């Protein structure tokens, strides 16, 4: 019998939600690390009981926790993130140079092949890798040092590397995204990088089509078609059919093309989900209606999914790492809100129900499909 395990990071701890394949009755376990910010936790695709969690605090800094039993018990591992060489400067909000300073880990991405290898996307933006199960971390400094780093600048949430996509078809190919620098790709496992932002247009930077400086909120891919990428940018939903070499806007009939999350159906590479947010100055759903939008055509044509979601007086946000899909035959879709709700759909978005309603603000949602 299949089951699913939903890993939820919140402002005040981590929660693990489990159900069988019907996804009707849920067990809620937590909080783990109560009182700490859990930006992200994720399991190894090779060993699903191997979980990694980013635990941080304004007082005590960054911790990395590791579980070997699916989240029942945890052990702290290495938390020393030191930039390679002289860190240099990036742009501050006012355009002046500002030294690179480590603040926290936003995203942990376990290797597709080795449970001991895990990548960490951090603020100030850089990519680190551990090959010993999180005990020690080394920066893949070719990204930060490839040349445009001094022109990167923080978004409102900080200058964070928040998205790491590992290409299942080409082990050396990795896509990452940074707010507000843009998207980057390596073809050689992180030695060298190139910006992949051609086709993006951002009115909040002096040159709207600049090589870097775009506030990319999230990128998603389907593992069967890794050359096709979908992006939720600060404004605009975008698509690339050539591994990021060029992008086309696919916002189509969305009520607003601002938002944070984007994800792809587990079995249908052209079925894409977004949650439109009113604007960059009003981070809540338009008209107080929480609607997931689904495209079955790879963008441009979108349908609202509302059954079971609040359609009045809803003013939560859904943050960039807070949507995920499971891999059961009827694809499950999950997202968490800043109001502490985690919603689940067991029918690819046609209908929704909350798993829990009153968690702390949700920062991230990941799903494991377990056999």
């Amino acid at each position, binding site marked *: 019998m299949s089951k699913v395990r939903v890993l939820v990071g919140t402002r005040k701890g981590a929660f693990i939600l489990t159900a069988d394949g019907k996804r009707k009755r849920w067990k809620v376990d937590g909080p783990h690390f109560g009182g700490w910010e859990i930006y992200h936790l994720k399991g190894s695709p090779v060993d699903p009981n191997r979980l990694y969690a980013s635990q941080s605090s*304004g*007082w*005590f800094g*960054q911790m990395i926790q590791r579980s070997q039993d699916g989240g029942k018990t945890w052990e*702290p591992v290495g*938390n*020393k993130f030191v930039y390679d060489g002289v860190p240099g400067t990036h742009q501050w909000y006012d355009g002046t140079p500002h030294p690179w300073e480590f603040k926290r880990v936003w995203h942990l991405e376990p290797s597709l092949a080795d449970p001991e290898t895990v990548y960490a996307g951090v603020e100030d933006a850089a990519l680190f890798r551990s090959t010993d199960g999180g005990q020690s971390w080394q920066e893949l400094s070719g990204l930060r040092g490839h040349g445009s780093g001094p022109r990167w600048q923080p978004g409102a949430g900080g200058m964070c590397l928040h998205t790491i996509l590992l290409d299942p078809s080409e082990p050396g190919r990795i896509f990452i995204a940074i707010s507000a620098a843009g998207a980057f790709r390596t073809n050689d496992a992180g030695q060298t990088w190139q910006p992949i932002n051609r086709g993006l247009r951002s009115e909040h930077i002096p040159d709207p089509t600049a090589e870097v400086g775009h506030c990319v909120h999230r990128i998603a891919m389907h593992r069967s078609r890794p050359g096709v990428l979908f992006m939720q940018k600060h404004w605009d939903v975008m698509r690339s059919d050539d591994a990021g070499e060029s992008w086309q806007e696919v916002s189509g009939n969305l009520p607003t093309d601002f938002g944070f999350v984007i994800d792809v159906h587990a079995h249908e590479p052209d079925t894409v989900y977004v949650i439109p947010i009113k604007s960059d100055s009003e981070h809540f759903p338009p008209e107080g209606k929480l609607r997931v939008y689904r495209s079955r055509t790879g963008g441009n044509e979108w349908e609202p999914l509302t059954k079971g979601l609040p359609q009045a007086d809803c003013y939560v946000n859904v943050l960039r790492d807070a949507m995920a899909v499971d891999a059961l035959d009827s694809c499950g879709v999950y997202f968490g809100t800043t109001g502490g709700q985690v919603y689940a759909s067991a029918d690819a978005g046609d209908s929704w129900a909350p798993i829990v309603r009153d968690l702390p603000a949700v920062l991230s949602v990941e799903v494991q499909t377990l056999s």
Partner: protein
Amino acid sequence: MIRIILPPHLRTLARVSGDVELEIEGRVTQRSVLDALEARYPMLRGAVRDHVTQQRRPFMRFFACEQDLSHESPDAPLPAAVASGTEPFIILGAIAGG
């Protein structure tokens, strides 16, 4: 024997309850106390002071004998009552946030 009082989150992280007691060889200073604390509880490295610069994290404070010692030199001797174990060395998080 030096007595150290940790903030609750760090007690949880280090899996200790109550005060921590440590033997310090040589001079008893902030640095020697923190060196011994981190040697006994490696998971606390980086939580009280920076891994590389060894500077106190901005929202951490050090109190002892009703004094705020946060801004003292890390190599200054701690009060004799701390060195003798009569009074604890208190590590706490500043009141901020929620």
